[in-house]
C-alpha cells in the first residue's frame, strides 16, 4: 500500500485562537463584567405583595424601612414555623395577606400572646374574633374616610384611604374606625386582661401600608403608629404553600413558649435529612449522563435519497375522478371493452373485426344465447353503480366461461 496515512490537522492552541479574535474576547470580558456587577449589586427581587422587602408599588418596604429608622427592628419570616419571637410582650406580630392561610393556621396565630396586626380583610380572622355576626368585605371603592372612633392611632391619622373593610358587632373591646357603609378599614380588638392583655388590630384596607399609598392622606400615620407599638416587629406574609404552624402552638398557648417544635412539620421535614442532598447529587449526575450520551461519536451521516414515485398514480387519479363524477357509464364501457379485448384475444378474433364476429365466436365458445352475449358486449351502458356492479359480475362470468376449453 502506497497510500499515506490521513491525520487530523493539529488545532490551534486556545491562546492563538483568542488572539485572532480580540473583539470577541473583549465583548465576552465586558459582558462578564456587567453580569458580575449586576449580580453583586442587585438583590433578589421580592415580588410578594405586602412583603417588607418588596420595593414595588404593592410591597411594604417603605413602611418597614421607616419603622427601622425609628428604632423598630423588623424581622421577616418566610414560614409560620420560621417565626422566631423571643419576647412576645415587646414584639408585634404582623400577618399580611391572612386570606392565604388556613383556618387552623389563623387559630394558631391568634394564640400568640402579644399584639397582632392583620394586614387584610379575611373572613377567618373576623369570624374567630368577632363571632358569626362579623363580616368582611374585600372590596370597597377607594375613598377617603375620617376616623370616627376613639382609638388614638386612628385619631392621629385623621383620614385614610379605604379600599376594604370589616364589620364587627358592637362591643366594648372593639374599636371600629374609618367606617364606610358599615365596613371599617381599621379595627382594634382588646383581649385578655391585666398582664396578659393584648390587642389584635386589623388593617382591613391593607393597601394603605403599601409603598404606593403610604404617603396619601393619613395612611402613614395609621400604619406606622399601629405597627410601632413595640420595639420589635415579626413580619410574615401568608402563602398558600406554607403549611407550617407557628412555633408557639406546641406550648401551653399563652405563656409565650416560643421554643417548642412546630406541631405540623413542612413537607421537607417529613423526609430524612440526607434525602434532598442525595436527590440533588443524583439530579446533577443525570446532567453528567446527558453530557456523556449527548456527545456524538462523529456527526450524523446524511443519505441522498432517491425520488420515489408510487406506481399507477395516473390510474388511481382517474379512478377517483370516475368515482367523484359517478361515471358509471364511462367505467362500464371501459370494463366491457377490456373484457371484449381479452375474449377476442383468447378466441383469436382480431381487434379490428366487427362486433358481430366477436359475439358469434363468444356464443360458440360459451354456448350462451346470442342475445345474452350481445346484450353484455354491446347492450346499453349501466345507469347506476348497482348496474355497473352487475355488469362487471356478468362480464367476469362470461370471461371465465371462455376460459374453458
Amino acid at each position, binding site marked *: 500500500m502506497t497510500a499515506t496515512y490521513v491525520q487530523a490537522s493539529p488545532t490551534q492552541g486556545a491562546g492563538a485562537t483568542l488572539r485572532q479574535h480580540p473583539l470577541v474576547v473583549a465583548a465576552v470580558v465586558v459582558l462578564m463584567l456587567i453580569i458580575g456587577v449586576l449580580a453583586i449589586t442587585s438583590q433578589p427581587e421580592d415580588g410578594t405583595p405586602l412583603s417588607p422587602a418588596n420595593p414595588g408599588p404593592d410591597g411594604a418596604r417603605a413602611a418597614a424601612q421607616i419603622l427601622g429608622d425609628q428604632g423598630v427592628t423588623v424581622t421577616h419570616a418566610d414560614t409560620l414555623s420560621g417565626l422566631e419571637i423571643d419576647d412576645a410582650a415587646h414584639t408585634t406580630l404582623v400577618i399580611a395577606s391572612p386570606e392565604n392561610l388556613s383556618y387552623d393556621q389563623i387559630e394558631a396565630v391568634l394564640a400568640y400572646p402579644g399584639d397582632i396586626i392583620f394586614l387584610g380583610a379575611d373572613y377567618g380572622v373576623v369570624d374567630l374574633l368577632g363571632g358569626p355576626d362579623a363580616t368582611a368585605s374585600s372590596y370597597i371603592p377607594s375613598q377617603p374616610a375620617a376616623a370616627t372612633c376613639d382609638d388614638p392611632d386612628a385619631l392621629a391619622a385623621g383620614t385614610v384611604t379605604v379600599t376594604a373593610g370589616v364589620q364587627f358587632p358592637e362591643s366594648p373591646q372593639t374599636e371600629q374606625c374609618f367606617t364606610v357603609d358599615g365596613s371599617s378599614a381599621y379595627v382594634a380588638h382588646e383581649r385578655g386582661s391585666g398582664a396578659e392583655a393584648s390587642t389584635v388590630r386589623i388593617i382591613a384596607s391593607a393597601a394603605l401600608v403599601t409603598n404606593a399609598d403610604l404617603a396619601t392622606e393619613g395612611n402613614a400615620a395609621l400604619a406606622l403608629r399601629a405597627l410601632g407599638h413595640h420595639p420589635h416587629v415579626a413580619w410574615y406574609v401568608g402563602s398558600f404553600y406554607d403549611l407550617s404552624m407557628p412555633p408557639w402552638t406546641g406550648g401551653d398557648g399563652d405563656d409565650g413558649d416560643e421554643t417548642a417544635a412546630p406541631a405540623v412539620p413542612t413537607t421537607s421535614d417529613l423526609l430524612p435529612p440526607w434525602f434532598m442532598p442525595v436527590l440533588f447529587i443524583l439530579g446533577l449526575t443525570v446532567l*453528567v449522563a446527558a453530557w456523556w450520551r449527548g456527545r456524538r461519536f462523529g456527526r450524523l451521516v446524511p443519505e441522498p435519497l432517491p425520488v420515489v414515485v408510487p406506481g399507477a398514480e395516473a390510474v388511481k387519479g382517474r379512478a377517483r375522478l370516475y368515482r367523484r363524477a359517478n361515471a358509471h357509464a364511462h367505467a362500464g364501457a*371501459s370494463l366491457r371493452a377490456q373484457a371484449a379485448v381479452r375474449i377476442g384475444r383468447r378466441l383469436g378474433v382480431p381487434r379490428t373485426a366487427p362486433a358481430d364476429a366477436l359475439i358469434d365466436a363468444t356464443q360458440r365458445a360459451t354456448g350462451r344465447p346470442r342475445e345474452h352475449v350481445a346484450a353484455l358486449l354491446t347492450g346499453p351502458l349501466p345507469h347506476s353503480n348497482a348496474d355497473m356492479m352487475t355488469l362487471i359480475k356478468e362480464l367476469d362470468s362470461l370471461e371465465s366461461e371462455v376460459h374453458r376449453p
Partner: protein
Amino acid sequence: MYITGWTVLLSALGAVPAVWAHSRAFAWAWIIMVVVLACVDAWMAPKVTALGVRRHLPRAVRLTESTAAELEVANLGKRRMRGAIRDAWQPSAGADETRHRYTLRAGEAVRFRTALTPTRRGDRAADRVTMRSEGPMRLAGRQRSVEVPGSVRVLPEFASRRHLPSRMARLREIEGNTAVQLKGAGSEFDSLREYVEGDDVRSIDWRASARRADVLVKTYRPERDRRVITILETGRTAAIRMGDAPRLDASMEAALLLTALATRAGDRVQVSAFDRTERARAIGVTGPTVMPQLADALSTIEPSLVEPDWPAVVRLVQSRVSQRALVVVLTSVDVTAVDSGLVEAVEALSRKHLVVVGSVEDPTEVELAQGREDVSDVYSAAAAARASLERDAVIARLRQCGADVVTAHPDELAPEVADRYLALKASGRL
C-alpha cells in the same frame, strides 16, 4: 472532548458520602470535582493528531452481497494510545458495526473491518472517521473527526442472471441444430462436412461434392457479429415504482441479461442510458470485459425527472451504427408515448433497424384491474382497464411501425426480452 460512563458512575457515587454530608454544597463540590477530574483526564490524553488512518476498500460489490471495508489505524506518536474509532458510512452502505476499540503502542498499527451490505445501487461513500483518545484515568478524552475519502461502487444486482443458463442452453441448441435439421435457422455459411444419414438432402453442396469422393453438406450457423444496441430510457417514467423497485431496475436487469446473452452469442453489444443526454454507455468492448464494464457504467445511473428526448435517441443510434442492427428500447409504454415522440422514434428507427420495445407492466395497475370488492374498487378496475386499452392502442401502433413490443412484469421483463432475442436469432432475422 468527550466523557465516558466512568465519569457518570463517579458522579453517582457521590450519593454515598452525601448521606452523611447532608448539604447541597457538598453535592456541588463533588460534581465540580468530578468534572474537573474529567477535564484534567481529557487534557492528559494523547493528542488525536498522533493517529493516522487509511482505507483499504474493495472496488465494487454487487447489490445484496456483502463486503468489508478495512480501515488501518496507526499510532504515529510517541505515547501509548487507547480509545475508540468510528468508521462512518452513509446509511445505505449497510455498515453493521462501525465502532471499534483500539489500544496501540507507539508505532503500532491495526486494521478494522467494517462489514458492508449495501442496500442501494451506486457509489456509496464513507463519511468522516471519528477518533477518540482516552485519558489515563479513562474518565474522558479527546475526540476529532477527519475526512478520509472513500467509496464503494455498488453494481446492479443482476438477479436475472439465474435465467442465463437456460437461455445459453437454448442458444447452443440454435447454433448446433440449425446446420443439421433446419436449413432456414441461421443464414450464415459455416463449413462443409460429410453427409450423414438424416441430413436434409437440400443442404448437400453438389459443387463441393463433385470435387471430392464424398457427399458434402453445407452447415449454417446463426449470424454472428451482429450489432445489438440497447437504449435504456432513464427519464421521468424510470422513477415510477413497479412493485418495490423503480422501473429503471427492471429495465437494467433486461439490459444486463440481454448483453450477457448476446455477447456469448458473438454479437457486438452497445448499451446506452439516455434521457435528454446520454447518462452512461458501454460500447466498443467485446468478450469477457463487457459485463464488468456495463455493470460499472449502469451502477451510478439514477432516474431523472425529465421527459426523454426521443429524436435525440434516433440521432444517437444513427451515429453509432451504419449497418442494420437490433435496437432494443427499454422504456415503459403508456398513452403519453404518443406525445413524447416514442412512436415517431420507433418508426424512424424501424426503417433501417430491427426494433424491440421492452415495456414494464405496473403490478399495481394489474392488481387494481382485478378489484371487485365495492364500487370504488370497480371504478379503479375501470380506470385500469381504460389505461390498458390506451396502452394496447399505442402498442398496436408501434407494431404497425414494424417494431416488436414486449410487455412483462418487472421480474419477467429480462427473460422475455432474452427470449425475444433468441427467437429473432433462431429465425435469422437479425
